């Protein structure tokens, strides 16, 4: 449009005033997006709500002291016992076996990849680790039951067909990629100047790696270990398939046992009416599981803060 003088041009505020709806629709969209982001908070709230309310129903029928100190877990029998330590022992033993494999192996691989390996080796190793980390856990369970157990039985002839040892070893292999990649990231973020100072003093690569790089990266290493512990404690299918689902209060890995997670699966496979005491036990067990992982996460946060380095 032509204008004869400046006063003929439409004033800016006039134009925007016609598009006042813009502000309304912007606000609406912002609220929708916020709602989507808030779903994560709702999920956490939902988890806490479901676990706590069903556990409250459970603890109205079973005393907490019994729950924590009884040495039998037979919730579906007539003479019902609800000693969670039976399941916790299975969880702890299998996690311990898994971490005994995963932490040394993962850390060694991480140190090797970040300090020693040349480009070609890293190009092959990274896909291997990603592959290992992408295998579904049920396939690992199959591996544990049908390949690892017979192999172990050749070494330990008295090993039963289901055992925490076999499940724990495979769980360890499954966790190695997590530890390796997170630890390696932590070590690579250590500045070269620290390493160069160590080399300048005459250290070998191994000496530098162990005495300079690892302590400097310790906060990241601790984070990866805590993640590994959470993974191990929360793992379900490998244990459900290879460790048997028989609750058994034992600290011996060569026996079959049930863990908190495999017990929940066992119950879910059967038929439990909503609201029965058996149904409520899985939520009490789930609450115990969350408490355990929460403790480890808090420990991990504390460790990271304490050892955080400012380069």
């Amino acid at each position, binding site marked *: 449009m032509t204008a004869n003088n400046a006063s003929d041009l439409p004033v800016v505020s006039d134009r925007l005033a016609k598009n006042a709806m*813009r502000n309304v*629709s*912007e606000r609406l*969209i*912002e609220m929708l*997006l*916020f709602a*989507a*982001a*808030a779903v*994560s*908070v709702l*999920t*956490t709230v*939902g*988890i806490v709500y*479901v676990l706590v*309310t069903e556990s409250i129903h459970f603890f109205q029928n079973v005393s907490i002291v019994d729950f924590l100190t009884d040495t039998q877990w037979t919730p579906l029998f007539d003479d019902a016992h609800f000693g969670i330590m039976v399941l916790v022992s299975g969880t702890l033993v299998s996690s311990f076996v898994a971490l005994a494999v995963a932490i040394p*192996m993962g850390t*060694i*691989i991480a140190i*090797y*990849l970040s300090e*020693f390996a040349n480009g070609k080796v890293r190009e092959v190793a990274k896909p*291997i680790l*990603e*592959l*290992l980390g*992408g*295998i*579904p*856990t*049920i*396939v690992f*369970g*199959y*591996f544990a039951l*049908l*390949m690892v157990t017979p192999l172990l039985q050749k070494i330990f002839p008295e090993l039963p067909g289901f055992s925490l040892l076999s499940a724990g070893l495979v769980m360890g*292999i499954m966790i*190695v990629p997590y530890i390796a990649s997170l630890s390696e990231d932590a070590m690579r973020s250590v500045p070269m100047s620290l390493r160069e100072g160590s080399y300048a003093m005459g250290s*070998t690569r*191994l000496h530098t790696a162990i005495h300079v790089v690892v302590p400097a990266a310790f906060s990241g290493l601790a984070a990866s270990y805590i*993640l590994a512990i*959470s993974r191990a404690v*929360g*793992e*379900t*299918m490998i244990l459900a*398939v290879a460790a048997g689902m028989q609750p058994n209060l034992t600290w011996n890995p060569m026996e079959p046992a049930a863990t908190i*997670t495999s017990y*929940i*699966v066992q119950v*879910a496979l059967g038929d439990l009416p909503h609201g029965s005491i058996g149904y409520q036990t*899985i*939520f009490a067990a*789930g609450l115990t*599981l969350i408490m355990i*992982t929460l403790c480890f*996460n808090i420990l991990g946060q504390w460790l990271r803060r304490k050892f955080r380095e400012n380069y």
Partner: protein
Amino acid sequence: MQHAALTTEEIRALIAKGKMKDTIFKAVGLLCLAIGLLVIFLLVGDMVMRGSERLNLAFFTEFASRRAGQAGILSAWVGSLLVMTVTAFAAVPLGVAAGVYLEEYAKRNWITEIIEINITNLAAVPSIVYGLLSLGIFVYAFGFGQSILTAGLTLALLILPIVIVSTREAIRAIPAMIREGSMAVGATRWQTCRYHIIPYAMPGILTGVIIGLARAIGETAPIITIGALTFIAFLPPVPFTEVSPGVSAGLFDWLMSPFTVMPIQIFNWTSRPDPAFEVNAAAAGFVLMVMVLSMNAVAIWLRYKMRKNIKW
């Protein structure tokens, strides 16, 4: 106290010992990597050897059966496909919207802190707890029952942190000049997001979604917990087909149908004492691994292509 100076031979011996330790450690590191590779080979090799006799077309088109020779994975892979569809439809809008909000709109206040802490925490929650959450809320409180819808929503919540994180990373990689240029010509924040940010971030978002779906397809525990059945000999009703005389299936009836998925079928077959089912389990496990690996490969290829196409 004065040390005697080391002789040249002693220094050389120290250096040699140090170098030997280095070499030993390199060997140990390679050995550990080799163990990982060995595990993969043993696993895949065993599944191929044991299961190859069952890997024919009939395997994919037969239902599960008590007779091992006739049992197939039809209901399992169809179930997995349908559940993944629901998961994708739920997780992608939610995750992308949340990622866009956190990167483009959120101010640095305590509400944002809480949201971010929650996302990090949820990534570390054991998957079976998601199953318990869905059992209490989706199956009973919302009344969705033990259906494909519940399974899809459960897995969507499970992979939500993955989608959110990859959306945020993809958006962060976009340089500020794009955003600023768009605002300079008068676009609102949403217009900027819709026409510039989200399209440019799409390859990164897609990569994250595919990785998340690859993870979800292998998840067993939450799906068992919400009540997927282990022996299913029928398919969910196809919309608009006849299910019983005079009654045709609605458009969304399949969502509420009982179902099974690939990992549960494998679990069922692995748990049977009959060794003939081990063959089936091996074959099904191999199929599942191929599914997961090809999805991961597609994601990696997408990521590579995206890096090549970036012009900034």
